[in-house]
């Protein structure tokens, strides 16, 4: 029983991160019909920005609420900016070209980010050495939340840590915020209109370019948030960390029905739990095979994904 609870906690922790990253895929697909393969790497950039902020704040500041909020805010803002730049300079010029062109560009950006970040590049400004690119070696992410046991079940059988609870809360808050933004605001309405048909939306006076740019920024900011949660959870960060998470989140988005917001969340949680229970109750070497096998099965029976057609409204 205790293991089941432990597996459930582990699976939920992974699943919420997949869900947050999957949302970015699904939002961008909604407005652009583009699979933004650089999304996982944007998450990685967000983590490194968070790392830099935490580093500048210093070890003493860690554990404080202000420091944690600052790390999240700066990292999300920086990624929003990065999302904007990528959309503006890499995807927008290609919007009228074939979809394949944009897809290849996305893969190119993904490689440029993940391998670019493996360079060691430092500049000296006024006597101080500033690291511009971090280099390939893994680093330890600072402890944003001082670890404390929150709940212990049985004889140390299951330990739930404070940061697990807080991370889960933050993930839920981000999801709720997005839900309100998309379904309760004017901008959300415009976004949904663009996703329905951006030509008609443009005719009705909706600034399509702006909506697409903001969608990218939102998706990237969510990825940064997810990235920080991921770094809090697994503590080690390195430039290739976004690749597998990005791929899994993409699978989650497709399982849920790409373009569909609740679908991405359900897909993410489902994939996270599924992976965890596969390792927990069958052979541990099956994890990735099952994740991608799951995708094939879902697509065989529901090519549009779990939520693809039930909810016709796309974002």
């Amino acid at each position, binding site marked *: 029983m205790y*293991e089941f609870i*432990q597996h459930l906690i582990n699976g939920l922790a992974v699943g919420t991160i997949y869900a947050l990253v999957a949302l970015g895929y699904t939002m961008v697909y909604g407005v652009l019909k583009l699979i933004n393969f650089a999304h996982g790497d944007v998450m990685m950039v967000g983590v490194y920005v968070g790392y830099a902020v935490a580093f500048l704040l210093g070890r003493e500041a860690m554990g404080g609420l202000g420091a944690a909020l600052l790390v999240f805010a700066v990292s999300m803002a920086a990624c929003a900016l990065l999302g904007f730049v990528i959309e503006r300079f890499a995807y927008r*010029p290609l919007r009228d070209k074939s979809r394949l062109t944009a897809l290849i560009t996305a893969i190119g950006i993904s490689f*440029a980010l993940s391998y670019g970040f493996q360079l060691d590049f430092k500049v000296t400004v006024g006597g101080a050495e500033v690291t511009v690119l971090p280099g390939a070696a893994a680093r330890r992410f600072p402890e944003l939340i001082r670890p404390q046991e929150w709940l212990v079940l049985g004889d140390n059988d299951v330990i739930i840590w404070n940061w697990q609870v807080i991370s889960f809360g933050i993930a839920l808050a981000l999801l709720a915020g997005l839900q309100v933004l998309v379904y309760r605001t004017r901008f959300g309405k415009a976004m949904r209109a663009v996703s329905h048909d951006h030509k008609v939306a443009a005719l009705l006076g909706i600034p399509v370019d702006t909506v697409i740019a903001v969608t990218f920024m939102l998706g990237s900011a969510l990825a940064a948030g997810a990235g920080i949660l991921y770094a809090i959870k697994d503590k080690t960060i390195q430039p290739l960390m976004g690749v597998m998470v990005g791929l899994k989140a993409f699978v989650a988005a497709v399982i849920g029905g790409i373009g569909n917001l609740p679908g991405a969340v359900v897909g993410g949680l489902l994939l996270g739990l599924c992976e965890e229970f596969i390792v927990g109750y069958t052979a541990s070497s099956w994890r990735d095979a099952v994740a991608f096998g799951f995708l094939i099965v879902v697509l065989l029976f529901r090519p549009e994904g779990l939520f693809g057609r039930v909810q016709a409204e796309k974002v």
Partner: protein
Amino acid sequence: MRVHVVAAVAALSVLGLGCERKPTTAEPVKPPETAGKDKPKPADAKPADSAVILLGEVGSLTGSEAAFGVSTQNGIELALEEANAAGGVKGKKLAVRVYDDQSKPEEAAAATTRLITQDKVVAILGEVASSNSLAMAPIAQEAKVPMVSPSSTNPKVTEVGDYIFRVCFIDPFQGFVMARYAHEELKFKKVAILTDKKSAYSEGLTEVFQRKFAEMGGKIVGVEAYAKGDTDFRAQLTNIKKLKPEGLYVPGYYQDVAIIAEQARELGLKVVMMGGDGWDSEKLFELGGSAVEGSFVSNHYSADDPSPRVQDFIKKYQAKFGAVPDSLAALGYDAANVTIEAMRRAPDLSGPSLRAAIAATRDFPGVAGTITLDEKRNPVKPAVVLTIEGGKFKYKSTIAP
């Protein structure tokens, strides 16, 4: 619009091409982007007439085992610098051409082909990871270019052919050392294993440890697997916790091991961890923090070794790179020195004569133990067991074959 695209592409290509490191004697190039584009200098085209003798090196300078590749390269660089200061070989200076394989076997194979066909190197040094060496060895064997691996411990590496050598002990021995230590010194009865199923190294150690520990009368209560690059090991560790082992054998690489240790503590799994030389990197302490304290590992050499040969090496290495050399650096240094010494003895530097000279290595005073190559081109030498105390490796004991 067009200008933006051009600017973006230009920015990307700068990023891509910038992946070159610049050590003094080396000129590394990343194979995929530049392959075929850069014209070999005249010196490389006809090495026989040129003033330098070119060695090749394939290493993981980026990717998940980057710390290994960089340490090894430092060791090789130091050895070459010393050899050149001593007048080089046969009146010529030595240089090494390094290609980064990004810790990927397919890149390592491509780099090997390039070193042989394009750069026409006399011998190849590398790789650290057995999976990468196994991708390189058939190519070197086919071309009759001697290859000396500094630290690939999987037995299959040198079994590829008579041109493939190594300067480190092999997995069966390392697995045996830890099994014996766990049984005799730590007195463990129940041990679980967490193995990297994607790595030939990890699988090799697991197989031997499992067999030897059982033969000695211990019990392996469970074997769980992960894949290199995973960052969440909680599911496997939750399963292991249920089995209540006294020890956990994790023959993986430092980056994964650090995360595993951390997550084991998080799940409340109180168990002594054990591992192999894959743990050996300063990064282990940075990433794993206090979670790796009290663990035991088998290794090639210890920086605590008082012998003047080792201390002298440490002093020179520290002066040049500002860090205490790990065993990867020591083995890189040994691999380069074994090759250089054989080059001095060989009548000429053609593949077959150099091969024969390396194979004849006897009682070579390496910093990671005295090297005598057996008929299978593997050295016979003892291993050390280290423990982790206060964020450092401490020498525990030496176990001879």
